[in-house]
């Protein structure tokens, strides 16, 4: 079920389906998950989980030298009526419930934040307007933690919008009660110098539905861990991602879907476009089907479109299956090029060069953008994609 095709020079796509009694997803990490930064050695760059990341550009987030400044980020939350918005201390029981940090920077964020944000949608509350969390970088260093909790049968859309310039390590927990439906759009629309590292944990309740869009355009370095686990049977996760990696940018998305519960579904689809010298996108897609997770149905896919020479993609889907009693499991990764021959073909049909490029990239992203279902966000993403393309000409 793995496929790889049209790989531009300098890019890699590797994949494996392992049938194992012991989790290689867990053992590939250099330390077990922990909330304490001291439990993780300072990475030197050769560890499996760090080998693609330029450590020197983390601005000290990984080695303890980055100390929070007062002017890190400004967070504004705009929530419709019925939503409870709180700022809480470190000892609040809701913090860390959805997952444990898996690398040193996530643990650093957890160890260093002072106050956490908690947004609660009470049970059976169905929102018609999105909750908007604006995270604006003010140029400094910050650590943060945000919790979004939906009670049973609550429904909400949450937009987390990152703009400005900052060095930020922040984790987000999504906790979904039974039958809850949560759509999250996390937009990384940072200025060029920003560094953003974080772990997004979702814990999906019985029969609950989690839909996530991770959209990364900006930043010097963005490295996110979207992770999902299930708290009851019948849970569904759809993890979608878009990234547009420009010259010099490093954008890394490392996903894990842990099928730890029977009869749950997951569908992962990440798409990226790259252009310019030293644009580097990394996609790691780990799916683990534990022995007890009978009836699992999962598929993961990563597609990359390389628009110019000099860009690099590393794409690693990894599916690990500990039980054969499943509905389906598959993965795919492909990296293709938009090249002179494609340009010639479209132009030979009367289409001007800039429109040809726009056609290809818009078409590539359209199926994901259309699924967001929030008009102003969809429109903004399409405008952003056009802007990125214009910048390249």
């Amino acid at each position: 079920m793995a496929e790889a095709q049209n790989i531009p020079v300098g890019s890699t796509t590797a994949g494996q389906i392992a049938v194992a009694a012991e989790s290689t997803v867990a053992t590939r990490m250099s330390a077990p998950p922990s909330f304490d930064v001291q439990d993780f050695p300072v990475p030197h760059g050769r560890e499996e989980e760090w080998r693609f990341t330029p450590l020197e550009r983390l601005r000290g987030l990984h080695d303890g030298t980055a100390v929070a400044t007062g002017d890190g980020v400004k967070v504004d939350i705009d929530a419709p009526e019925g939503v409870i918005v709180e700022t809480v201390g470190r000892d609040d029981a809701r913090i860390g419930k959805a997952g444990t940090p898996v690398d040193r920077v996530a643990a650093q964020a957890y160890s260093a934040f002072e106050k956490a944000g908690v947004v609660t949608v009470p049970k059976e509350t169905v929102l018609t307007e999105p909750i908007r969390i604006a995270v604006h970088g003010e140029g400094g260093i910050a650590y943060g933690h945000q919790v979004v909790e939906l009670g049973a049968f609550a429904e909400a859309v949450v937009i987390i919008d990152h703009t400005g310039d900052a060095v930020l390590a922040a984790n987000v927990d999504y906790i979904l009660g039974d039958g809850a439906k949560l759509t999250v759009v996390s937009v990384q629309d940072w200025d060029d110098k920003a560094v953003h590292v974080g772990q997004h944990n979702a814990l999906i309740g019985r029969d609950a539905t989690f839909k996530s869009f991770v959209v990364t355009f900006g930043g010097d370095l963005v490295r996110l861990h979207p992770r999902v686990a299930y708290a009851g049977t019948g849970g569904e996760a759809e993890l979608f991602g878009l990234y547009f990696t420009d010259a010099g940018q490093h954008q890394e998305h490392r996903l894990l879907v842990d099928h730890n519960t029977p009869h749950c579904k997951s569908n992962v689809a990440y798409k990226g476009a790259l252009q310019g010298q030293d644009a580097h996108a990394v996609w790691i897609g780990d799916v683990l089907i534990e022995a007890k997770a009978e009836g699992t149905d999962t598929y993961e896919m990563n597609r990359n479109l390389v628009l110019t020479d000099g860009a690099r993609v590393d794409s690693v889907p990894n599916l690990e299956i500990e039980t054969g009693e499943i509905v389906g499991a598959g993965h795919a990764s492909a990296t293709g090029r938009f090249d002179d021959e494609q340009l010639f073909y479209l132009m030979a049909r009367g289409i001007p060069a800039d429109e040809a490029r726009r056609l290809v990239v818009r078409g590539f992203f359209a199926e994901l953008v259309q699924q967001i279902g929030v008009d102003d966000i969809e429109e903004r993403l399409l405008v952003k994609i056009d802007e990125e393309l214009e910048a390249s000409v």
Partner: protein
Amino acid sequence: MATLEIRDLHVTVEVENGTKEILKGVDLTVKQGETHAIMGPNGSGKSTLAYSLAGHPKYTITSGTVLLDGEDVLGMSVDERARAGLFLAMQYPVEVPGVSVSNFLRTSATAIRGEAPKLRTWVKEVKETMQRLNMDPAFAERNVNEGFSGGEKKRHEILQLELLKPKIAILDETDSGLDVDALRVVSEGVNRVRESGEVGTMLITHYTRILRYIKPDYVHVFSAGRIVESGGAELADKLENEGYEVYTKGGASA
């Protein structure tokens, strides 16, 4: 009446050990309503002629002129040539990931016609044209040429020919790799466009087989980078019986 005039066209390509001249003085005039078969052995430069006319960046024009209704084609960009009325049905159509056939066709028709076709009539037009080419409607939702069979690619090229209605159509080995059924379907498509009387057709082929379905007015033998003999449809019969050897072995005689 639209006329394509090719005069003394010389074209080179860059090869490993320098520059190689492929076209060595091509002269040809194609008028609206006429069909010219360009026949010749592999490597004679037929496809180079086709791609040079369309403006592929790989080819360098070193001398000569190409005029379409008096306008200088060689001074136009690739998309300008297409909008001026030139169409190249490619031997190896290119895969374009992420772009659906329907989106591609509409964008192209909008560019060529200068305005977006009215949606309702457009949908009907595409659907009917696809039906005549024995193409499944689901085809429109696939990505351009991605995973198409050889026959599907050629049908898709002729679908564009029918929808874009060029002044001059250059068909580069449209017959290659087609079985007899597919060849007939594709030829019928070409003939529908020819019957309008509004297109001049350059049919580039290695084989005479397609000429049973598409009757040329003129046949030109291409060898070593130029036209070495021209005649009527009967010249194709001679090629069928005698092959290209007479043109390649004893050196090209004009």
